[in-house]
């Protein structure tokens, strides 16, 4: 017996929503999905009228869906935003060069201007070269830190007011779990915010309109809307610690689908005791980027790479920051520790 859509009751249901378990027809699903994102944007006050917004586009399903939905909602509800696509080329052969082709196609399909920034031009290193030096265990740290700065630099070049990224509910839940497992209280407090603070100082605020959208629903949306996206995983990702949190989350979801939102809820309602030391936001003394230490993380990592000491920046080396700033060479013992790499 065919099941009717639980919203319009007239049409036949074609899918079961992973989030709520309701059976919906195609149009009701599209409407519900887009409407939820609209509600998220409006209730969190993510955008202001007349702003220029850069959409972080990687060519993957999240950013493609984000670009599509932003365009649709901008027209439907008249947000009055100027949208454009911003892409980062990390220099991973066989992965990034293919996904960039997808982004270029998106540019034509959605008629949005596109800017691509690359690690090569910003830092002088590609991810492939970094992995050769660092190995397969800590390379995700390099990629993540560099990408964050690359997005900001690109946005500053384009003079945008805001950046939005395609982080979905699964990503945020994984981040909460990962921060719990690693004991990172400072990040745990910040990671569930839907947008970063916009207190000038050269830091462009960024937000996550897809924060409450399930990854499965994003895939369903992209599939039914026949959107063009690149669906291969990064070749270096299997060794990342995040993989453990991810597997756990997927298992949780199979037991109870609402777990993803439950984890986000826990993350949002956690509060920190008074007297617990929190990092203070300042600026990097070398490049002027925001940082809670004397040197920002990417300067430290770059220094390590350039000197052939890949472990500088992985682990706690605050005491060496002073030496690096002063361009001194490190003692032999310090060098020995930092050179070691485990696979």
């Amino acid at each position: 017996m065919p099941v009717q859509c639980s919203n319009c009751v007239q049409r036949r249901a074609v899918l079961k929503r992973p989030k709520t378990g309701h059976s919906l027809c195609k149009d009701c699903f599209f409407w519900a999905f887009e409407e939820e994102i609209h509600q998220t944007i409006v209730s969190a006050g993510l955008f202001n009228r007349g702003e220029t917004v850069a959409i972080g586009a990687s060519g993957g399903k999240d950013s493609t869906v984000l670009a599509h939905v932003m365009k649709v909602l901008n027209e439907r509800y008249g947000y009055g935003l100027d949208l454009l696509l911003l892409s980062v080329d990390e220099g991973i052969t066989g992965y990034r060069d293919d996904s960039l082709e997808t982004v270029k196609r998106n540019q034509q399909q959605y008629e949005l201007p596109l800017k691509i920034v690359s690690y090569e031009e910003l830092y002088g290193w590609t991810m492939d070269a970094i992995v050769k030096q660092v190995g397969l265990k800590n390379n995700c740290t390099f990629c993540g830190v560099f990408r964050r700065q690359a997005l900001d630099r690109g946005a500053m070049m384009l003079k945008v007011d805001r950046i939005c990224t395609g982080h979905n509910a699964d990503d945020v839940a994984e981040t909460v779990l990962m921060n719990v497992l690693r004991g990172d209280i400072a990040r745990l407090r910040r990671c569930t915010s839907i947008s970063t603070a916009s207190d000038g100082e050269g830091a462009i605020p960024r937000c996550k309109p897809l924060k409450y959208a399930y990854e499965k629903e994003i895939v369903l949306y992209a599939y039914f809307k026949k959107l063009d996206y690149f669906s291969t995983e990064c070749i270096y990702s299997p060794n990342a610690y995040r993989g453990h949190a991810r597997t756990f989350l997927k298992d949780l979801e199979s037991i109870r689908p609402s777990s993803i939102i439950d984890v986000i809820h826990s993350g949002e309602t956690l509060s920190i005791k008074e007297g617990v030391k929190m990092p203070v936001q300042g600026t990097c003394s070398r490049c002027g980027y925001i940082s809670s230490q004397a040197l920002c993380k990417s300067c430290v990592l770059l220094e390590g790479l350039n000197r052939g000491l890949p472990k500088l920046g992985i682990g706690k080396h605050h005491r060496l920051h002073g030496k690096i700033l002063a361009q001194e060479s490190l003692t032999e013992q310090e060098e020995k520790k930092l050179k070691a790499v485990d696979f």
Partner: protein
Amino acid sequence: MCQAEEEYNGLECKQEKIPVPTLNRKCIKCKEGTAVLVKKRVCMFTGSCFKEYFIHKLRAMLGNNRVIFPHEKVLLAVSGGTASYSMLSQVQEVNTQFFLFICVEDSAYSPEHKLAVERLFSSLKILIAKEDMLQTLRQHLILHIARENGYSKVMMGDSCSRLAVKLLSNITLGRRAALGFSDHRYGDVVIVRPMRDYSFKEITYYSRMFNVPSVFISGLDTKTHDKASIQRLTESFVTNLQADFPSTVSTIYRNLIQSVMSPQSQTAEAASKCLLCLCALDTKAGKASAFNATLVSEQLSQIELQDPSVEAPARSAEEGQGCGSSNRLPSHQDLKTLLCYSCRLTIKDMVNTLPPYIITEAEKQQKRWEMLLRNLNE
């Protein structure tokens, strides 16, 4: 592995050498006797040194926290497992002023009570809910006994490993962490966890070496597969991760329990505490929150649902859901408004099979709300 050396032009790959424990190593405490057990790679003790270290830890914990004072009446909740029996034997070594211990058994029920309990648990469709409800009821029982007999402090035997698992599963259930050394959410009764610095491994060593008796009682999730419930899954996840990353349990425990504020320490009057778990209610969150997102999704996926953004319990009378005199049993909708986020999920499939004392409390809270609203309207 060998290939790496070629790429690095002859730089040797420095491998961290893990010392392999050999026989006849000296104890690190007294440095005289031969070590008989290994706590963590290089920490080796003789039997008596280990006992000293074990008991010293408990003494230090009780002394530093200043919650339990000598000659105070304390209730020890002993389930019969290794951890709680170790706690009992330790406490006897430290101080003989504590009284009474209770065993939480499942066999001492009259037939009608047994039937009622079975009905309650069979109405909870999934294992997660059953385990959650069992935990809540057990907690209520212990509190009740403490209050009846005039105990102001209760000691529970949760080890560090058990607490880390509980914490993580609380987070995945949508419950905030609430497992510090002393738990003040019950007002007059304080729950204390003196075993929280011991890993389960240490407790097992202690009980084996010093012949502490224990009984294994199978729980709801014994011999179930990994994905039977969230609690079970979390336990196996943490245990497996601990094998690869030995600092997992201590990281979770140390950072979270000691940095995160327990939800009950936020100002919470009696009217805004959850009916089941007695934590401060977290469902009045702002518009841009995960909770609100779930309500919006429910609304958008169904036709003509009543407005879910209304949270005051008194409104349920207006919604036409069997409104009438205040003597009626609280409906499912009313109960939901008196519960926190995760307790709502637990009773999702359950209808009117809660124990009478909870229903009475629910009615009381409802009346309080109605009065409050009436006063505001005047």
